[in-house]
């Protein structure tokens, strides 16, 4: 066992020296390798952080939302629905919600107007999302005007700006009082956009939804877990698409690795010939090359992953964000909380180290079987 370890140490030693002797070439390969890791890791870290952020935000959302449908379109909840729900087993709280979209021609963006349910707002005041505040250039205390769909002009004063932490979903949010909301959108009293229900026991959620669907055939219950699931699969899907595109880059990389491994310089060939002549065996050369690949892969992996980590979590993935987020005009600007995930690291490993290893396998063998007497034959 000791002999074995000693031997591997010698091989690693030699590999390090031989890598160092061909700095330029190996550095080039290392950089390309690290770049590939960086790209893929950025995609993965970013989507994962987004998913995580969405999960955290939705954690506080109501378990069930009831929407009324008219002709297959989402419509207002008429008066009386909230009362008709009555007492349902497992429902802790039910509430009518008011929200809607507003197109602001000034910045050419859509806002979400919503009645705040957790804070009381004085009539005439607003709380806005950080993204909106940024694009409209407003601060607390400023006045802001919107022309309602009815044509009337409303002026509000900004009471507060939502914390940047929740910006992923609140960038375009405008919170206002119920009276203001009804006046602005012309919604008569008693009508709501939808109804939210809080259900404590996760096992009850489906029962509650089932009863609601029976009781209100014109409405659809939407479950939080399903929104989460949908988000999850959308994010994963996007990640998958980007990665599938990245496969092309991987292919190019694998070809490069193959090239590098098979197109060994005459110098390197001679060196392996010498090693074989002075007593190294094919297996020794294979092991030496294995260590070379392992060292190269490991450093490229670490380097690329670290760079991606910095890119995503300190520079908010500035290179990728437009591709992977982009569902609203107001891009949220937010700090993602750093998450490193075992599954992702393993997957990333498969996407980078595996192709490299597979691509270099045969070329390495080809070099390793150099005839030991080749150096004598000149």
């Amino acid at each position, binding site marked *: 066992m000791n002999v074995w370890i000693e031997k591997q140490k010698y091989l690693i030693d030699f590999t390090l020296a031989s890598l160092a002797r061909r700095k330029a070439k190996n550095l080039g390969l290392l950089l390309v390798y690290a770049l590939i890791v960086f790209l893929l890791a950025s995609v993965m870290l970013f989507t994962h952080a987004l998913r995580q952020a969405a999960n955290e935000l939705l954690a506080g959302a109501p378990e069930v939302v009831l929407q009324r449908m008219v002709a297959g379109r989402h419509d207002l909840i008429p008066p009386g629905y909230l009362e008709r729900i009555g007492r349902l087993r497992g429902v802790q709280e039910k509430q009518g919600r008011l929200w809607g979209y507003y197109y602001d021609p000034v910045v050419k963006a859509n806002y979400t107007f919503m009645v705040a349910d957790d804070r009381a707002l004085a009539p005439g005041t607003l709380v806005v999302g950080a993204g909106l505040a940024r694009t409209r250039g407003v601060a607390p205390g400023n006045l802001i005007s919107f022309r309602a769909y009815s044509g009337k002009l409303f002026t509000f004063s900004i009471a507060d700006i939502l914390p940047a932490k929740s910006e992923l979903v609140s960038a375009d949010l405008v919170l206002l009082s119920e009276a203001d909301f009804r006046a602005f959108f012309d919604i008569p009293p008693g009508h709501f956009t939808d109804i939210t229900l809080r259900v404590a026991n996760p096992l009850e959620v489906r029962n509650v939804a089932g009863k609601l669907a029976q009781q209100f055939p014109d409405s659809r219950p939407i479950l939080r877990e399903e929104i989460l699931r949908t988000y999850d699969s959308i994010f994963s899907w996007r990640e998958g698409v980007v990665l599938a595109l990245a496969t092309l880059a991987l292919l190019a990389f694998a070809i490069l690795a193959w090239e590098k491994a098979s197109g060994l310089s005459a110098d390197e060939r001679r060196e392996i010939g010498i090693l074989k002549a002075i007593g190294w065996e094919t297996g020794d050369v294979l092991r030496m090359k294995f260590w070379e690949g392992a060292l190269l892969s490991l450093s490229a992996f670490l380097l690329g992953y670290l760079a991606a980590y910095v890119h995503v979590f300190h520079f908010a993935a500035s290179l990728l964000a437009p591709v992977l987020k982009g569902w609203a005009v107001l891009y949220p600007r937010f700090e993602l909380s750093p998450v490193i995930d075992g599954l992702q690291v393993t997957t990333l490993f*498969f996407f980078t180290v595996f192709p490299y290893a597979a691509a270099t396998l045969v070329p390495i063998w080809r070099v390793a079987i150099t005839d030991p007497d080749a150096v004598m034959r000149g």
Partner: protein
Amino acid sequence: MIFQPAIIALLLSSLLCIGLLLAATPFAIDLIRNWDLASGSERQLLRERRTYLLSTLLAFVFATQLLALLLFVFNADRMASLFVGAMCAVGTLQANAFGFPALLAQILVFFLAAVWLVINHVDTRAPDYPLLRTKYVLLLCLLPLLLAAALLQWRYFLALKADVITSCCGSLFSDATPGVTADLAAAPPLPTMIAFYLSLLLAGAAALLYRRWQRGGYLVALLSALAFAVTMAAILAFISLYVYEHPHHHCPFCVLKPDYSYQGYALYGPLFVGTAAGLGVGAVQAFASVPTLQSVVPVVAGRLAGLAAGMFAVVAVVASLIVLNSRLLLLAN
């Protein structure tokens, strides 16, 4: 089909492994047919060099399968959020009929590849390569199994469909995934616990006896396989319960999660290594009477037996620690 990075990685890697092995098949057949160590012809020299390529390839496939196994379980656990009723990997794997068969096939491939590598190792330590034909015939037998495992995986992933809201209809249309259950059936805890310690003890003792007297190599393999099966049952029946401190959550996968401080790795790692080593001890017994291997087999198998015994001991200790440190009282009175 769910389009996810881990799934893409698994499918691509299994495709690549099969591609590599298929490409190597003609070489293997040529070796089986024409191997002649006594010949000094250039063809024979080339054949000898190809044996290096094939061993390296197999080692590579083996390493990949090991990683793929990990990724497969990892990913199954993560995908649980995509299926109604699935809480962890168990639910995901039951999302269609191919999940568990795919997992089992993967495990089988892992063990067989390990055994192949052991036989290969033994063979290369005898100067006449006495098992060369045998091992390449075995390699050819391994290929269909690898294909089957890959096929199961493909079928499994292709048949997966996430329960996602569609724009036209609400939630209740999506609860139709049949057969998804959160838990696996489990054996009663106390008898399983006895069986668990007993099987580990027997396997470990057999391995130590082999190491000491080179007797009963097949028994080591048999008892190792048994210990593997019983330990899996034990994880289902009681070890997992102690980990989760929950009397009804029989799940062999959640123990791998960070929520339970990765205790599963300390359990599965030694278990898989120990079982593979134990199987290796048995596999090489078949060749113990080959003249040039008479001195090799006992050495290699003895080392493997020591490894197996050590690993089974670790499994027993880890399981005991889990049970002792748990706040769950499963066997009170």
